[in-house]
């Protein structure tokens, strides 16, 4: 039976977060608001076929996913690396009756939880802006959670391999930024040339957006099972790899 000991690690991180909860939540709300208002009005007005508000609604489905990706990645890289390598918090925890796998699970679920909060904040902002026509949008919540789990797992792999904070900029340059721009957050994938379009199909953010955007607009996503499967595979395989690499790094 899987152990619930990871919750101790999750609670530890929650206690730290609570000290800075207010600025953190304000950031979660302000960032998507700026994106949607700024790009929605600014760019949207240049798109006559989308009619201003239309682009803002389009954008909301993408920004939910990109905000989730960003939060999960930052937490499972910079913050987890601080606790693992700089502050040696993990070392202290595994001297108690917790195992390294408990710690890794705790960090994974924690990063996904923070990402969930951040994605839900976007959903809330979208609802307040009147961009959410039906309750079907609530199905976005589990999509955010799954997306958070996938990106947290991937980021933990990078953390396991990283000698220092500088290493993370490779991942941002080579993975996060391309996904931000190529996975349909700001414009439909179909606008991209064939090869890039095909490449984008392999990236997790594409599948998150493919689920969230229709739901945001009150429509059931096509091929939902496929998108869920791809995200679940990224989460599951990513987590298994991260666990293996972190065990190798820390318990040698």
């Amino acid at each position, binding site marked *: 039976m899987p152990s619930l000991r990871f919750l101790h690690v999750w609670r530890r991180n929650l206690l730290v977060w609570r000290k800075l909860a207010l600025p953190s939540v304000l950031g979660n709300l302000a960032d998507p608001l700026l994106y949607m208002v700024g790009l929605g009005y600014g760019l949207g007005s240049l798109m006559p076929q989308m009619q201003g508000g239309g682009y803002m609604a389009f954008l909301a489905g993408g920004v939910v996913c990109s905000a989730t990706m960003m939060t999960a990645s930052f937490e499972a890289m910079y913050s987890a690396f601080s606790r693992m390598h700089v502050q040696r918090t993990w070392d202290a925890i*595994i001297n108690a009756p917790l195992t390294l796998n408990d710690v890794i699970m705790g960090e994974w679920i924690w990063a996904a939880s923070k990402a969930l909060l951040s994605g839900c904040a976007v959903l809330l902002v979208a609802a307040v802006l009147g961009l959410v026509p039906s309750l079907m949008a609530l199905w976005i919540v589990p999509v955010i959670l799954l997306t958070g789990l996938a990106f947290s797992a991937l980021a933990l792999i990078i953390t396991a391999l990283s000698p220092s904070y500088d290493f993370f900029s490779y991942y941002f340059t080579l993975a996060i930024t391309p996904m931000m721009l190529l996975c349909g957050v700001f414009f439909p994938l179909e606008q991209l040339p064939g090869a890039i379009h095909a490449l984008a199909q392999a990236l997790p953010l594409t599948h998150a957006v493919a689920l969230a955007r229709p739901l945001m607009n009150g429509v059931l996503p096509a091929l939902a099972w496929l998108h869920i499967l791809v995200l679940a595979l990224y989460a599951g395989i990513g987590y298994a790899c991260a666990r293996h690499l972190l065990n190798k790094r820390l*318990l040698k």
Partner: protein
Amino acid sequence: MTQLRVENLRKSYDGREVVAGVNFALAHGECFGLLGPNGAGKTTTLRLTLGLTQPDGGRITLLDHEVPAHAREARGRVGVVPQLDNLDPDFTVRENLLVYGRYFDLPRAALEARIPELLDYAQLGTRADARIQTLSGGMKRRLTLARALINDPDLLFLDEPTTGLDPQARHVIWERLRQLTLRGKTLLLTTHFMEEAERLCHRLAIMDHGRIIAIGTPRELIAAHIEPEVVEVYGDGADAWSAAAGKQLAERCEKPGETVFCYTRDAHALVANLAHHDARTDIRYLHRRANLEDVFLKLTGRDLRD
């Protein structure tokens, strides 16, 4: 009752044997020291014993649990003071104890009752709400020690507990540790301060190149491995004096650097001879009893270990 038994423990990294067949056992209530130069395998032995790395061979029984198979259960009855401070910088002094106590599944009420006691013990009662960054090195060590006691452990592991502390802070830690042995706790500590080992440890083992090369009480080790008296001779004339008189009057002379160390069972003749040279400024000397450091240097050599 045996608190910890280590039998024929082995561990290699990249073909280099870091722990090469180590055996020892800790009786209830004893303070046992592992001494050795840097890289002797002390810290690896501790990590193996806690189940934090897989041994290549041997057997470990920690508080009746087989390690590594049941290391997690065993750690529930153990406290650890690591070599590098890893207090949680995101928390206050009190929160550090509270959060650490939760890792042992201790209920909040039990922790609330225990924390003031531990703060007292660590002499941090007035700093309960201070941030970790504002504590001195000695305070941090005391808090780390208090944190290791949060689960009221039977056995305490201390990896170089006073490294980097000033003498005042070091004496406080020594006094706190002695209190623990008086209360029946078993202690396993690593150190390379001989004075610390001599003061605290009932028994100790000297480790080098992954092996235990001597084991016993501090007195036994001194009696078994070294002449009881030492005369150290310094100055430009030390060399010539050693050749002319020192080597004949002492059982053994060593000159690792600028100082001649004369080891002997009876230093009367040496001291009498040196007294003739009292007027000379190029010879100074110090007569003392042999100590653990002499044993340590004899057994592990005087070469630098980096």
